[in-house]
């Protein structure tokens, strides 16, 4: 799974497989992070409006 593991080989098949898996995980992770960050910002903005 990672280059420091015994099974890892440096060739195209490995890059494609792990690249695709990593890409999918990254997209989902980035999407979730975006939602959490935006939700925090929106909630804080509402708090500021409430204070005014």
């Amino acid at each position, binding site marked *: 799974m990672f280059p420091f593991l015994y*099974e890892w080989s440096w060739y195209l098949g490995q890059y494609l497989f792990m690249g695709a898996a990593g890409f999918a995980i990254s997209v989902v992770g980035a999407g979730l992070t975006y939602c959490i960050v935006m939700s925090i910002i*929106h909630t804080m903005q509402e708090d500021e409006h409430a204070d005014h």
Partner: protein
Amino acid sequence: MTTPAFPEGVKRCGNGQFILWLLPAFLVLLIAVYAMFRVWFYGLNQTNMNDAYGFAIWIWADLAVIALGGGAFFSGFLAYIIGVKNVKNIINFAVVLGVVCYTSALLILGLDVGQPLRGWFIFWHANIHSMLTEVAFCLTIYLGVLIVEFIPVILENPKIQKNRFFHHMAHNMHEIMAVFAATGVFLSFFHQGSLGGVPGVLYGRPFAFREGLFIWPWTFFLFTWSAAAVGPLFTATMCRLAEFITGKRLVKDDVYRLLAKISGWMLLTYIIAKSIDTIYWATVTAPARGFTLMDFYSNNPAYYGIWILIAEILICGFLPALILITQKGRENKKLLFGAAILAIIGLCINRWVMVLQVLAAPLKPFQEEWFVYSPAWTEVITTILPVAYGIILISLAYRFLPLFPQERELNP
């Protein structure tokens, strides 16, 4: 009754009636969990597995629920990527069904490997040349995607919505749902396909082996296509069942008709491709290995006669497809759901044939008898487990979450 915890403007049964409804499912679940722990604690000797059947009956259940759960990815594709608005009226329910199917599939796999504590080996020491490694990766990541798609549905519960952070979170997740849906489609394409690829690459088993395109046997594409075709029909049928049980209309008929039309054409193209594949296999691939078509459908237990091929392709393939592509067929609810049930049975037969009949066929020249398998009670009850678990999760989701946006309008 109505409470602040229920979706706005809808009525639900009383708590006592709800608990009574769930009780039988909980009893089945309890027995299944006992069987599950027996398998994990004492080992796979609690099953009837043998040298011929190394995956028990679970492998069929696994492939079938994954294919039927395909409704989630294909409905997501239609709703968020193609932009078919009407599908959004059933997409939440499709996601819940998907979560039920995929968590069940992973649970069954956890039983099937016998050593669930070593389940992480397939990720850590990944053999990227194995179709099953691809299945494990895509299946696990896709379950994550499905849970992500399920989160905003949970957050839309009126009580949770009162929390402003969760309110914004649900809104923001809906905004970028297309990104999650696209990732789900990508992952589903590969794991549905690789599940089909597994029998297709078995060149030592002429009943399963298929030629194909580059590294992918034709079964790779047939499995993905069939899951995309029948998955939405399964979603529609389960929705209709929910309507029957609750005594309410949950989605408008045009949603059913739309899903039926799309699935009908998908099913027709799939079954034509499947027929071509079968004819090519029967006339070229199998004879090249010294077999005729009837070698695989005779001299074996009655349940593997030629009838199984006729049932899969004609009765549960062409027949429902032809009903669903005609307007008259779609407008008659009994015909529509009759065709949907036939298509679901056809898909289950296909998965049965591609794993269990493959394992039943004799491998060596001195073996004349087909292998017969009768599952142990532990296998049967744990195979029923997803049904009980599904009833519980769907009932809870229906009670507390806004699964059907049209419910309020249809039940004033």
